[in-house]
């Protein structure tokens, strides 16, 4: 079977906290500037300079999908995402309660839940994030940056070990 679906890859350490992703998300989906409508949110610890982008992880075994009493939530395997059918949704907010990431939002104006739909394969948060704190990558690449960083540490340690050894001789 062919591998399918890219994933949203978030690198919190790169995030500058500007929240342009929140703005473009709400404008793209609803035509409104309003972070309360954004599918992505930058959670901040300002006194330490920490900014963490939070969005739907499009879980394989999604708690929101399991808990939904009317089966309004389903997986779209083509884009590897979890989708809500608002024709079926009864607005009970069970999905909001169970999501471990707080990624299911509830719109205070339209009184409907909402979540990241990966903009049908062209996530606007990624498109506008110049520093790529939010990226959209093939699933097999999602851990590559971490692998490299860890590998770098190992090579540095190895070099140090070699240097120490040659010094002691």
């Amino acid at each position, binding site marked *: 079977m062919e591998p399918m679906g890219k994933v949203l890859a978030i690198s919190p*350490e*790169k995030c*500058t*906290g*500007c*929240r*342009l992703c929140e*703005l*473009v998300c709400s*404008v*793209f989906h*609803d*035509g*409104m*500037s*309003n*972070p*309360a*409508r954004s599918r992505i949110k930058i959670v901040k610890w*300002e*006194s*330490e*300079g920490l*900014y963490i982008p939070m969005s739907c992880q499009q879980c394989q075994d999604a708690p929101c999908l399991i808990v939904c009493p009317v089966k309004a939530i389903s997986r779209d395997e083509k884009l590897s995402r979890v989708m809500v059918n608002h024709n079926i949704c009864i607005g009970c907010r069970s999905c909001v309660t169970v999501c471990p990431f707080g990624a299911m939002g509830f719109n*205070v*104006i339209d009184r409907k839940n909402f979540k990241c739909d990966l903009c049908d394969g062209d996530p*606007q948060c990624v*498109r*506008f994030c*110049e*520093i790529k704190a939010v990226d959209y990558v093939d699933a097999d690449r999602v851990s590559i940056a971490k692998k490299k960083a860890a590998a770098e540490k190992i090579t540095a340690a190895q070099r140090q070990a070699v240097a120490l050894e040659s010094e002691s001789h």
Partner: protein
Amino acid sequence: MALNRKIAYIDLSTGKIEIKPIPIDVRRKFLGGRGLDAYLLYNHTEKGIDPLGPKNTIMVSGGILTATLASATARTHVMAKSPLGGMLGSCNMGGFFAPELAWAGFHHLVIKGKAEKPVYLWIHNGKIEIRDAKNLWGKTVTETQWAIREELGDDDIKSLVIGPAGENLVRFANVMTGIKNSGGRTGMGAVMGSKNLKAIAARGTMDIKIAYPKEALEYNKRFIDQITSAKVNQTQGTLGTPFIWGATNSWGGVRCRNFQYNQELYCDEIEPEAIDEACAETMGPYHMAGCFGCQVHCRAKYKIPTGPYAGVYDEGPEYTSQGAFCSEPDCRSLETLLVGNHLVDQYGMDNLETGSIISWAMELYELGILTSKETDGLDLRFGNDEALLEMVKRICFRKGWLGDTLAEGGVIASEKIGKNSFDYLIQVKGMSNLHSDERATPALALNIATSSRGSDHLRSRPAIDLYHLPVEVMRKIYSNPVPYDGPLSSEHTEYIGKPWQVFWHENCYMGVDCLGICKYHTTFLGATLPNFEDWSKVIYYNTGLEFTPREIWDSAERCNMIERLFNLREGLTREDLKKGDMLNHRYFDEPCRRGAPDVVGRVIDREKFKKMVDEFYEYKGLDKNGVPKPETLKRLGLEKEPSHLL
């Protein structure tokens, strides 16, 4: 939509709050942000009022494009009569406050009177409440913000606050938001303090409808690509504004030891690369932060690496702090820079004014005009890092004779100190100059002399004049949206063509401040960045309002004229050293001692300077005294001011 954001009038003496819409015809004339604030200031204050009395009115605003997709619509503007110079008071800051205010339903606040005891405003989805600030009084800038969040139980609240400096009515106290976003220069924090107004907290979830979302998104994307491809912004996004220091110091444009030298030598420790390294060391390789929606992200995050403040988190330091805590007082330690920056951030005090005024006092101390009697034993010589930081504290808390005196700002302090102390004060309209030295750059000298809020680099500075752009490129920039076929010169030491450049930038930056965007997104440091023509599109896509580039120019010119009318009402006369469009004699009399070969020995030529001012006045439609001609007021539709439309 953006245009349905309201204006609120808040009387702190009576507790009365009135909310009104902003009519479109007023928008067309004064746009929003600083321009509309200037109109409101002229209409809501009387001549000669005490800036720290209840009759002063303070305006807080976002621009016409705040929280839209115009690119970095983060700027908050605050305006009142200045307690520093008694002229126009105005400050503009980045961060996240203005967008939050807009999502809470408002573009403009007009705050009058004085509360009986400390209060703060709580603005939430169309409603405004005056709340007790007893528990906030005495708190620092960040303590205040976190305490408000805790009290109201919402971490997403954004607040404009004052620190101890504002409470103590230091005449150059800031309005602050976030860790270090500073509404600096003309003491707007002291005006808030004088009204017992500790903070303005906002939080909103109200929709701002974008008129043409698809076009606005695509335009924003192009805008970002354009902005992030500009080399100046890439550098800015890595080193922050300190990169300007290295570039300016190299040719001799940095003010040292108050005004004795124009270049700092042996200063590796405070070079931008060294600051960048220190930030990276404590915060990791990605240590830059951005204001709302901005892809330039010029704000560095750091933890103080050494000394008694080791481990303390702050942001910056900006270019201005390098001058304030390094070149002007002649200190060269990274730790002093980072600590000084942290102190003024937490006290809510203008870094630039603080550094400048202490350096002035240092020169007076060196000359014997001030002695250890006035300094209460403090050895206030140049290069004394400890004395510098101690003086920062004394000013904020008005401790000792000198601390209390300097807290009054340069002009009042010079009257108290007496002798010829005023001769050494580098200021215009009561406001100290940035740590830049304009003796080799006539365009920049004209800019600081004629700027509406005093010696200021953000009102009309043609910074790109230093790039030696080919005349044809300059012609392309400066002939739009109004034709200009007069002389232009690529040479930054020249006088010809400069008045038009200053006039053009004055209108350009007014446009920026009315739109609520950042100057790094226009023809300020980058010659290829957007201005009037792009703004006409971006206003249309986001608000649906149609403006030609020329109409935006006209509105900007009108807003600048309102600021001038205010200053004239407060006593502006052309050559008055305290209230005029005039520079300290040192610019004309003391030659530059250091710098590039074409800089050493330079002074501003008095006669040529006069001619530049004449020409600048002509472009603005002023007579030889700097007063608008009747036909100018008629052309700009200002002949009936104050017109009380709002």
